[in-house]
């Protein structure tokens, strides 16, 4: 057979192959419509949510809103200074606790742990389970162990920071482990072959290689921590304080708590303030996420 003949017979055979029947094509169309609909509803919901918050909140947003203390009686003079300062301090405390603990745990599990030992498997399963514990339960833990009970700190800034740190610790560990695992074994073997100790290998090769991933994970975990309301409600964060926390053992508030308090207020003016506070919270989160994405794109190692 010549090439032309092969091509002709192939073409002939293609027309013999069963075409999708009319009913099949109808189902295909319906399924596509359903999928586009689902994506559309998701986008529409997010769009509406942002629009609603912006419409209520933007008119209330001003420099004096950010630099005034909340007020229970005069919505026009109320602001979010104490809540914003509280949120920033909580984030700092959480970071100080969660970064060393999360990274060392991830290093242990990836670089040292022998997976055939039951205690290492226990740590692993335990972290997976902790990641799924509802945040309100961390609030109960904070109330029973940190605010009262063994630590007995009272409902102060440090107690809030520790509670949030425990809440996001599993997230940091899981993301840091993935980043460490992405460093190929050949890098470690090369370093060890040149005479480096295991710790030198980790410190000089593995950590620098996984740093972008780890930092991204930490930022995402912190942005989850500052958006949490339930645990702070349970441990008893202050509602609308007219002072900034002046130390680790001071009463505190946070943006989500302030938003919650204003949302519950029967006066519509305060509800609009809640929308403005949401905008501030979302801007903070957006900044953090942009930094995370930028870091990921700028420093991500391709092996």
């Amino acid at each position, binding site marked *: 057979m010549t090439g032309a003949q092969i091509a002709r017979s192939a073409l002939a055979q293609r027309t013999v192959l*069963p075409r*999708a029947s009319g009913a*099949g094509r109808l*189902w295909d169309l319906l399924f596509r419509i359903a*999928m*586009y609909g689902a994506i559309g*509803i*998701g986008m529409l*919901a*997010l769009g*509406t949510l942002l629009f*609603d918050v912006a419409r209520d909140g933007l008119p209330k947003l001003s420099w004096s809103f950010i630099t005034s203390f909340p007020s229970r009686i005069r919505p026009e003079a109320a602001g979010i200074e104490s809540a914003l300062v509280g949120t920033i301090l909580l984030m700092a405390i959480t970071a100080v606790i969660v970064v060393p*603990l999360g990274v*060392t*745990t991830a290093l*242990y599990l990836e670089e*040292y742990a022998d997976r055939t030992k039951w205690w290492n498997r*226990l*740590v692993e399963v*335990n*972290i*997976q*389970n*902790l990641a*799924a*514990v*509802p*945040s*309100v*339960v*961390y*609030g*109960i*833990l904070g*109330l*029973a162990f940190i605010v009262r009970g063994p630590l007995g700190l009272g*409902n102060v800034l440090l107690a809030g920071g520790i509670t949030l740190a*425990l809440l996001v*610790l*599993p997230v940091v560990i899981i993301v840091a482990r993935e980043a460490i695992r992405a460093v190929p074994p050949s890098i470690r073997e090369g370093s060890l072959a040149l005479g480096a100790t*295991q710790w030198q290998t980790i410190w000089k090769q593995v950590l620098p290689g996984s740093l972008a991933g780890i930092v991204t994970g930490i930022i*995402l975990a912190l942005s989850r921590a500052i*958006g*949490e*309301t*339930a645990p702070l*409600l*349970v*441990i*008893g*964060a202050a509602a609308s304080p007219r002072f900034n926390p002046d130390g680790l053992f001071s009463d505190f508030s946070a943006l*989500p708590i302030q*938003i*919650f308090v204003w*949302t*519950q207020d029967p006066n519509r003016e305060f509800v609009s303030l809640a*929308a403005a506070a*949401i905008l501030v919270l979302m801007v903070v*989160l957006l900044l953090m*996420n942009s930094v995370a994405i930028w870091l990921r794109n700028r420093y991500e190692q391709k092996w």
Partner: protein
Amino acid sequence: MVRGALFAAALLSVLTTAAIVLSLLRETISFFGDVPVGDYLLGTKWTPLFSGDQQSFGVVPLVTGTLYLSAIGLLIAVPLGLLCAVYLSEYARPRVRRAIKPVLEVLAGVPTIVFGFFALTFFTPVVLRDFLGISVNQFNALSAGTILGLLVLPTIASVAEDAMSAVPASLREGAFGLGASKLQVTLRVVFPAALSGIVAALILGASRAIGETVIILIAGGQTANLGIDPTQSYQSMAAFIAATSRGDIPTGSIEYETIFVVGFTLFVITLTLNAASIRLVRRFRQVYE
């Protein structure tokens, strides 16, 4: 030396779990010293903060309220989330995919308090009352449940998409080679092959919905209601805990103990769901790697 120090850090996560269980158990045991277990588990009236004869500790309305609100949420999130996952994994071109995934990530990163605000100030008054003309209570299950679904949607979509993307291309190519259409490949080859991962996504979504606090606290109301009318107000376990604990209730009082006993019930339910989900994910990973 280094190894020991690192292990000590790893141990802290185990200690966290131990502390959670310990703190929950201690008050729970003390609670059951005052209230019989049967009255708690089977009682149908939940009024722990009332006094005298009006006080009752039946957890059934809280549990059914939690499940009811989660069911409404899942009714919305499961079909939408799975359709999004199928689209992203099987149909979307790489460029479209790169545009849509960040939107889902943004949705997943919105704090729950914002969803609560949206449910109370927009979804209930504007969408349900004005647009759809349903006469709902200011706090109602329909609004809280729907927005709960919106919260869970990205979780379900991303886990299910991971499961479907993990199905090897050779399975799809084999089916196409046999003359199957795109729809047949998706529904009869990819979907069943990824089923355990998809089920894990659903369980994870359910567990998130059950543990969610603030949306229900703000938009679902604070009355432990035993019924199925979606226009009425309901309370969930997590919302009860947050509403009752404000840092000023006396240690050892019965109100204080109810927080822990409800917290323990919630902890057991979510832990069971999570264990099931971990097991399923492990199974679907074993098949193809």
